[in-house]
């Protein structure tokens, strides 16, 4: 590299901006950081509370005043994952004599219960995973194709179509649950994986199209056009140039779609029973069977959080630019 005239001899290693040094700016930054920390704590309290409850014993979970310090136990997880039976006093004594009891059995015994089988929760969690993943895949797949078409081609009635796509989100889902329930019954889609995948894909698609169109609009057409004259078909140009460039948008759309499908409650409650039931509606159904098992519910909620957290962290590099939406640096 050639040294340009007037350039400093020594590399500049610290900021020379006058507005970034001195007492006042530093104080301001300190205050901002402090506020951010306070906001973060407020937002984290429910999550932390849930995490704590998940590891509390049943009496600890409901104790008043709430216990901040307690002896952690996996009792909640055991009751989440098992079906149990209440034992009589004699049975408890009999059980205590047995030496073939597992760790989980002994935990249940403390509450006077015997494990009689696995609960359905792992199945519900698996359903959630299948339905969310597949519907997210289709939302993003069709979304990116539709968004590309809207962004690049002259589509007749483009604005009307885009508005129509958006309008599918305008009714609160609950309003349409009954008609959809009746339709699903008639079409034999009730309590099927396919039914929920279809519904979530349709729901997320409008969102995906709009979000991705914004990202694709930001990619200069010249890139593809250069590829077209360089000897590639439009599909090849799309795959080699547009797709890598829209990874940010795809990541953002994936996370949002996945979170929606994963958290969705109302439709899942109405449209599934045993076969295709997802995790969220399965949790409240634990309320009422032999008292509220708060520890089990918290454990289930915690389990529900994990995939979303993993996905978000996995895509965080792309997301960091994605959440700023249109603010991608040009050139």
């Amino acid at each position, binding site marked *: 590299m050639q040294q340009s005239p007037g350039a400093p001899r020594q590399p500049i290693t610290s900021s020379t901006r006058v507005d970034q040094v001195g007492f006042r700016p530093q104080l301001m930054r300190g205050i901002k950081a402090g506020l951010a920390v306070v906001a973060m704590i407020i937002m984290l309290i429910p999550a932390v509370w849930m995490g704590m409850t998940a590891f509390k014993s049943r009496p600890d979970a409901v104790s008043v005043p709430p216990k901040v310090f307690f002896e952690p136990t996996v009792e909640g997880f055991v009751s989440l994952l098992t079906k149990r039976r209440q034992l009589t006093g004699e049975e408890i004594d009999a059980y205590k004599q047995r030496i073939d009891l597992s760790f989980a059995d002994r935990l249940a015994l403390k509450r006077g219960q015997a494990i009689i089988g696995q609960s359905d929760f792992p199945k519900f969690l698996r359903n959630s995973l299948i339905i969310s993943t597949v519907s997210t895949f289709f939302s993003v797949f069709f979304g990116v194709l539709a968004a590309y078409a809207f962004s690049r081609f002259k589509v007749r009635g483009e604005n009307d179509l885009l508005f129509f796509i958006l309008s599918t989100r305008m009714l609160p889902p609950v309003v349409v649950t009954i008609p959809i329930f009746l339709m699903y019954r008639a079409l034999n889609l009730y309590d099927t994986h396919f039914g929920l995948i279809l519904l979530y894909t349709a729901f997320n698609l409008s969102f995906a199209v709009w979000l991705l169109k914004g990202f694709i609009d930001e990619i*200069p057409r*010249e*890139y593809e*056009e*250069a*590829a*077209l*004259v*360089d*000897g*590639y*078909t439009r599909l*090849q140009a799309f795959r080699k*140039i547009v797709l*890598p*460039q829209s990874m940010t948008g795809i990541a953002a759309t994936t996370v949002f779609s996945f979170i929606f499908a994963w958290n969705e409650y109302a439709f899942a409650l109405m449209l599934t029973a045993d076969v295709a039931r997802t995790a969220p509606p399965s949790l409240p159904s634990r309320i009422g069977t032999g008292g509220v098992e708060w520890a089990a519910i918290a454990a289930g909620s915690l389990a529900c959080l994990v995939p979303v957290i993993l996905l978000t962290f996995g895509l965080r590099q792309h997301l960091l630019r994605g959440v700023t939406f249109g603010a991608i640096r040009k*050139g």
Partner: protein
Amino acid sequence: MSGIRLEGITKRFGDLTALRDLSLTVHDGEFFVLLGPTGAGKTTTLRVIAGLERQEEGAVYFDEHLMNEIPPADRDTAFVFQQYSLYPNMTVYENMAFPLKSPLRNLDKGEIDRRIRETAEKLRIGQLLDRKTANLSGGEMQRVSIGRAIVREPRVFLMDEPLSNLDAKLRESLRVELEHLQKTQGITTIFVTHDQIEALTMADRLAVLNEGRIVQVGTPEDIYDRPATTFVAQLVGTPRINLIEAQRRNGVLKMSKGAVELPYADSAVSLPETFLLGIRPEDITLRADGEFTGEVVLTEPLGVETIIHLKTGEERLLAVVAGTKQIAIGETVSFGVVTDHLHFFGADQKRLGEAGGE
């Protein structure tokens, strides 16, 4: 390499007609420039040739082959865009390899590598090959763009204002380089610009476009010395040509608002009674024995030359003198007019007398 022929091209974008019945022939191996103001249809013409836009009417021929239905990939043109043309997140090497790796070409790795290194050397970008394109300067980027275009020896080279985003010095040096490259490679080149200096210096022939129509086609000399319309006359040449309302009366040409009267040789052009007189600033010479006098309103010293704004009667004229000249504003000077290069335009803005160009 090919010659290119456009026949009656019309292109509309909604209500806007970008090209109206445009016909054009570019010879094989020629450096052809499309010159015109913004919105004249230059870029659209280029995109129609590349196949990036489809014309509503008319035909595009490469040599004698009709290209209307041929997709851009199979037309084998190379396009240099004004900006944004390098693929991001690829290195310079990958950018230049991209057209060669096209499934259409089916070249082996060694051949691709050989061609890239050869081209890189020609454009003096060998040291940049491993760099990401985001870390290049503007001049380097356009050099790589040009490299990516010539690396595969296309039938025709299409350049859409490739120099306009560069600073003046860089533009000048890259212009010379491009010209040299085109002359040595002999690739048919169509070059779009709104800069008349680029057009005049680089072109073998050029076409002046305005509002989607071709106004004039010819060599730079044709365009400069025999502009077909007042539009062309004003577009080329800096400082801009003096266009003056004038009258023919009793064998003399008289400026309507000025004091200048010029002798009128009957043989040259048959003139109507009123017309527009065009005088290039370099044809107005300041000299002590000049027939006319004028008041200096403003001077613009440019180093090589000085532009002098003169007021004579109610008319204002631009004159150019060589070097820097110390003339006070408000001073009265004498000047003459070189009558060999006068331009005459009728009320319809068209050139009177001998036709300009083709």
